[in-house]
């Protein structure tokens, strides 16, 4: 029955092209107004917040001196913290040179625990950043390095150092699985990434409590708490303004849609009288008017969204995500249907006897 009502509503809309086009244009205009103003603001907001949400903003770096006594067991303790997205530990840096270039440029080699190199590295192998390879004089990630302690290791691959670990550059990484260690290993740097920038401050407190160090004085912690705070401010400010202006646009559109729908049902009241006489219940008339409004608003919403997308893209303006477009279309339909409730009731209550009588 729902499909039949929808088809009947669509047919009724087709039979009243002027009013239908007017309604479609109004709803499309409403969508364009929202998307070109607040949509653009939301696009900007999403871009700004997206940048602030990059891993760098969500990262806490703990540096530990040798006396502090930080070891890899901290990774196990951090596993149970829900706001931790990722934790990686690095051992103290050891100078290494290209085995084939004695006396060559020294690059820091670090054992790493929990670091995803994106490739399988056999025990004893190391991966090098591009910068490290260049300093070592290696054109390709193949060769060997020797530390000043005499430790030799094969270079088996290269890595792109993530932005949040940029401070380690240039670096050679000797990855190890912390789960396979026979005993905890000394850690000089612990990098913890939070699930959300908003959790940075609270996570910092949690990390301090699980470090398990001998000498807290030997610990320094770097966070991006200020950026996280900025994110909250930007997010809240833009959202608040967007909501106010969007609400105003939708309210104006609701008044216009209500006016047009009222005019429509007044013009067509004889039709509603006939429908009632032929067996349509008041409920069905109500459903027909609301469905007609929904169909037209849906078309208007989609057209408005397409038009806005094309315009924003052509203007090289920030485009909000597809979820925002979908929400605006759904909201347009909802607002139009709600605005049509009163005229729909009016139509449903037409008395067939009064409307069908010929004077």
């Amino acid at each position, binding site marked *: 029955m729902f499909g039949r009502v929808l088809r009947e509503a669509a047919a*009724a809309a*087709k039979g009243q092209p002027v009013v239908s086009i007017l309604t479609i244009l109004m709803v499309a205009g409403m969508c364009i107004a929202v998307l070109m103003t607040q949509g653009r603001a939301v696009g900007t907001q999403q871009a700004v917040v997206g940048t602030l949400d990059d891993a760098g903003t969500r990262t806490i770096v703990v540096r530990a001196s040798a006396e502090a006594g930080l070891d890899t067991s901290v990774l196990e303790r951090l596993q149970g913290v829900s706001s931790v997205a990722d934790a990686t530990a690095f051992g103290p840096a050891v100078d290494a040179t290209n085995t084939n270039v004695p006396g060559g440029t020294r690059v820091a080699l670090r054992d790493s625990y929990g670091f995803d190199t994106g490739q399988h590295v056999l025990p004893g192998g190391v991966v090098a950043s591009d910068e490290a390879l260049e300093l070592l004089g290696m054109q390709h990630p193949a060769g060997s390095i020797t530390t000043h302690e005499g430790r030799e290791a094969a270079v088996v691959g290269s890595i792109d150092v993530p932005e949040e670990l940029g401070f380690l550059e240039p670096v050679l990484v000797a990855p190890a699985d912390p789960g396979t260690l026979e005993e905890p290993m000394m850690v000089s740097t612990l990098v913890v990434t939070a699930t959300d920038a908003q959790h940075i401050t609270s996570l910092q407190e949690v990390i301090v409590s699980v470090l398990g160090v001998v000498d807290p004085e030997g610990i320094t912690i770097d966070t991006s708490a200020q950026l996280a705070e900025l994110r909250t401010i930007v997010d809240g400010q833009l959202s608040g303004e967007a909501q106010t202006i969007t609400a105003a646009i939708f309210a104006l559109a609701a008044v216009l849609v209500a006016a047009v729908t009222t005019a429509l049902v007044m013009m067509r009241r004889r039709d509603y009288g006939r429908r009632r006489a032929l*067996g349509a219940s*008041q409920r*069905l008339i109500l459903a027909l008017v609301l469905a007609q409004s929904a169909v037209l608003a849906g078309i208007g919403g989609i057209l408005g969204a397409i038009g806005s997308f094309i315009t924003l893209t052509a203007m090289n303006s920030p485009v909000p995500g597809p979820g925002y477009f979908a929400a605006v279309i759904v909201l347009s339909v909802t607002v139009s249907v709600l605005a049509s409730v009163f005229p729909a009731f009016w139509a449903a209550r037409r008395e067939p006897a009064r409307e*069908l009588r010929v004077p």
Partner: protein
Amino acid sequence: MTTLLEVEGIDFSYRRGNSILRDVRESFPAGEVVALTGPSGRGKSTLLYILGLLMVPNAGNVRVLGEDLAKASDVKRAKSRAHMYGFVFQDAALDLTRTVLDNVLESTLYRGERRRDLENRARELLDQFEVSVRIHHKPGEISGGQAQRIAVCRALLGNPRILLADEPTGNLDAVSSRIVIDAMRHQADHGSAVVIATHDPSVMAACDRRVEL
């Protein structure tokens, strides 16, 4: 003969007006064509609309197959109208934005029937009433006589037990009037109760009985 429609003690007055109907009692059996007659303003159309469950009387009962529906819920009265009744109005009252075929099939929506199940019957009726060549035209493109015949097709599509007509020949020529009257007679012969509000002497003459208001 089975009484399909019956009214008893019907009183009706408009809000600020005098009483239009007072203690009206009538029954309308299957197979009979009844004319509601009388001067203008005596309540012919009002009684017709009360019989059709389109107006609620101030007092009295409207029994459809023995069940009093005068003050039944809107849904129940609408359901009865959709399934039991056929209506023919004075000016056809077609939907000007839809085709002739759409108009004839309109009531299938209210009966919850599938449109395509009744499309053949609609075409047969339009053929029978000699308007089949116009099925994809809009009512604005056809004559008044043809429009009224289409309205009759619409009323007969659901094979109603009760057929009500309000001045159905008011604007028609003699040929169209004859076709409409014959259709109503034919429907009564097939077991329906037919009630016609009319001023037209030729219609009155074709009816089995007159109710003077």
